[in-house]
Structure formats: C-alpha cells, structure tokens
C-alpha cells in the first residue's frame, strides 16, 4: 500500500513546530483518516477536533497545504503525495493544542447582532405567511455549518487581526440571513457599519473560495449588506426616497 508523509503542526499557545509522520494512503482516504491513523499508532496525544466526518459539523477545519479546508472532505487523491502534506491549525484563531483552535470569539461576536424580530402575525392565530421566492434567498445562508474557514482565510482577521472591529464573513452571512428574512423588520445597517466593520471587507472573495457549502458569501451576503449600508449612510438619493416612505 502507498504511503504519504504528513507534516503536522504540533504545539500550544506558547509555540510549536511541524512534526513529520509517515502513514498509509489507501484509496478513498481523507486527510482526517490519516490524522486518526497517526493519532492511533504514532502520536496518541495529537489533538484534533472532529465529529461527523461528513462535512456537516464544521469541526475538523484546518489548513491543508496552506489552504483552509475541512480535513474530512479533503481526499488524499486530491493532493500530491510525492511531497509532504502539511496540516496546520487555523491561523486566525488562538491555538489550544496541535490542530485544535479556540473559535469562541465568533460566538461572542455573534451575540452582538440584533436577533430576529418578526413583523406582526399575518393571521389571527398568530402565524405568518411567506412566499417561497422570498425564502429562497435566505435558505442559502442556512447551509452554513460554522466551520469558520471563511473567518480563517479572511485577511482582515488573519493578517491584520482586527477581531475587535470586524465581524468577518461568517457573521455577515448570519446577519444577511436575518436582515433579508421576509418576516424580519429589524434594521442592522448601523451595527454592520459600526461594530460589525463591514467597510473593512475589500471583497477579495477568499471566503467564497474556501466555503465547503459553496455559499456565495461575497456576492450574496456581503455585497448586498454593503449596499444596504450605502442606502442608509452614503446615498443621499436613497435617504431622500426613504424619507418619503419608499423602500
């Protein structure tokens, strides 16, 4: 059976380095399989977070050969095996141990976003009516598995560490799901521009590129939210129309 060399970053908050392991590379294996094999036979204390191994829990996010990816969804056949395969933890988040990072910052930022606020019920029994075309747009955002690969690759967080001023792609997707919901009546444009720092996004589309759910984060979430911010803060004509009650 063929083998492959894996260079796995191992360390803790004080630092770390790459360690090399050789493991079997059988047909059909994904990177997470190889990491588990190494953990079972060569490095019992190797820390790796995982759950479903089906690309739906978003736990096994890492950087494989320099690109943020889910370990469970990256087949070894997608990689070149004649060179060592590098596996690192996500750069954007503080490391806990080895491949496990602390992503709690995302959840702390999430609670800053105004929650869902539905309009008054449409029917006397307290229920609402929604048309499918109106729901379709936000359905895309509900596919997000919160793997935070988009947060990891975003250079505003990764390179410039603006964690306190910039929510990041995942939280813009969450905001878009609320903001564009056909029942929601809350206005989040102020916080998107302020605490959310959406103006820091310079539309590199890296978040879209790494999304394992193929959500068009930039085109369908971030840019439409940027345009809503323009409506409210930068476009005098839009403000004029809104003053006369048009939306």
């Amino acid at each position, binding site marked *: 059976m063929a083998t492959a060399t894996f260079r796995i970053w191992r360390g803790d908050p004080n630092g770390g380095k790459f360690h090399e392991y050789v493991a079997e590379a059988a047909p059909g294996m994904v990177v997470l399989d190889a990491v588990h094999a190494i953990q079972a036979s060569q490095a019992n204390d190797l820390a790796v977070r995982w759950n479903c191994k089906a690309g739906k829990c978003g736990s096994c996010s890492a950087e494989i050969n*320099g690109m943020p990816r889910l370990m469970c969804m990256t087949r070894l056949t997608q990689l070149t095996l004649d060179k060592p395969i590098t596996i*690192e933890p996500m750069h954007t988040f503080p490391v806990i141990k080895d491949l496990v990072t602390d992503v709690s910052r995302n959840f702390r930022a999430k609670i800053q976003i105004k929650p869902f606020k539905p309009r008054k019920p449409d029917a006397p029994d307290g229920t609402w009516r929604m*048309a499918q075309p109106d729901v379709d747009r936000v359905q895309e955002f509900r596919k997000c598995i919160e793997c935070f690969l988009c947060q990891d690759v975003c*250079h505003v967080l990764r390179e410039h560490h603006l964690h306190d001023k910039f929510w990041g792609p995942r939280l813009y997707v969450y905001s878009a799901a609320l903001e564009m919901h056909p029942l929601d009546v809350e206005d989040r444009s102020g916080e998107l521009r302020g605490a959310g*720092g959406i103006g820091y996004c310079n539309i590199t589309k890296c978040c879209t590129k790494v999304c394992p759910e193929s959500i068009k984060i930039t085109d369908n979430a971030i840019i439409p939210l940027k*345009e809503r911010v323009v409506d409210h803060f930068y476009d005098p004509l839009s403000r004029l129309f809104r003053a006369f009650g048009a939306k």
Partner: protein
Amino acid sequence: MSNFPAVQARAFGRTMRRDLWWVQPLAVFLGLGAFVVYATWAAFQGAYYHFGPYLSPFYSPELLGSWHPWIGGKPLWWPAWLIFSPAFFVLWGPGGFRLSCYYYRGAYYKAFWADPPSCAVGEPRKLYLGERSFPLIVQNIHRYFFYIALFFIGDLAYDAWNGFHFDGHWGMGVGSLVLLVNVVLLSLYTFGCHSFRHLSGGVLDRISGRPVRKRVYDCVSCLNGHHMRWAWISLFWVAFSDFYIRMCAMGIWHDWRFF
C-alpha cells in the same frame, strides 16, 4: 484563552500553498495594466478616433471635438501647453464605473496592492484601513457611476446604430459589427452590476408580490453570476474597438464592407 496566534504570521509572499497562487493576480496585473496603458495612450492621441460612420468608444460621446461634437470645438480657454483630446471628457465615466466595480476592486486590491497578494498568502504591510476610511470609502459611490454608465450604454447603442449608416444608406462593415458587439458586451457587464442587482430588487426582503421587479432581479442576478467574465471580455473588446477604428483611420487596416 490566550490570543496567541496558532502559527506566526508569514512574511510577504510566503505561504504553504502548493498551487500557482500568483498566476491569477499576475494575469490581472498584466491585463489591467495593459488596458490602462493603452487607454491612456489612445486618449492622449486626440486623432484617428473616427472612420466613416464609426466613432471610437473611448471618444464617445464627442462632447468637444472636431468631428461631430455635441457642444463645440476645442474651448478657447484650453491652455495651449495642455494636450487637448475629446477623450478627456469621456473616459472618467466608464473608468470610474470600472474602478469602483465590486469585481475589479477585489481583483486590483490583490494584483496592484497585494492586499492580500492571494488568499492565505503573507502581506507586505501591517496597516490596513479597508474601505471604511478615506480614500477607499469613496468606493461607496459605485451606484452613481452605474447611473452614468447607463448613459454611456445608450450613447454607444446610438453609435452602433450609426455604424450601419453609410452616407445616408444602410450598410454593414466589419466596423459596424465591432461596435455592435461592443455595446452588447458592455451591456452584459453593466446590467450585471452588483449595485444594480441591489437596486432592482435586492433591497427588498419580500419581492414575490412585485413580479416585474422579480423578473428584473432574476435577470440581473443571472448576469451578475458571470460578472467577472463580462468585465474582462467587455474590457478587451472596448479596447479592440478603439484599435480597429484607429487602424482603419490611419489607413493600415481596410474596413471590409458586407453591403
């Protein structure tokens, strides 16, 4: 938990990526750079911008000029030391539209400013202001450049129409088709604009009750999905349109007539 990053930030251009990540930003740099150089050179010529019924898109509309100007000739107040060209009064419009375009922004921030050079690749500088402060906050006026671009689409459609009229008679030359294709490609790019997508229906949370707007929004969304493609094809073709007319006007190329 410590805020210590997992792995130390990498220096400019350093990455663990194995793919040819530098190819795309380099291609954008060369493509956009070549266009800017050619468009600037063509704009400063001030000559060979019309041939027969054809008018170069770099010079249309000819507000001030010597062929069929809308307003008049070279203004008397124009400084003698400054080169005069009708293109100076035109190119700021479509140029501003492309410069503030959401697609081009992402592309040239990478290719010309390395911010970032590519996804997950080390950057050259630590200071980052984004589009939140001056000067890039100005990009928020993109929708106004879209309104201006609409005017240019109408103007170039008129030029394409004129391109089929030779001395008061219907006719068709290669140049007629070049200008027709030009306005079609520019329309496919312009009407796929992200700002137009927002204005046409994206601003609404409930669009189902407005069938006309929904139809428009769906069409714009469809074009928007290929915005990058139309941006590049139309960019190439508008430069080629100028080049074709310039070559014909200089007598280097012959405009082959179908009828």
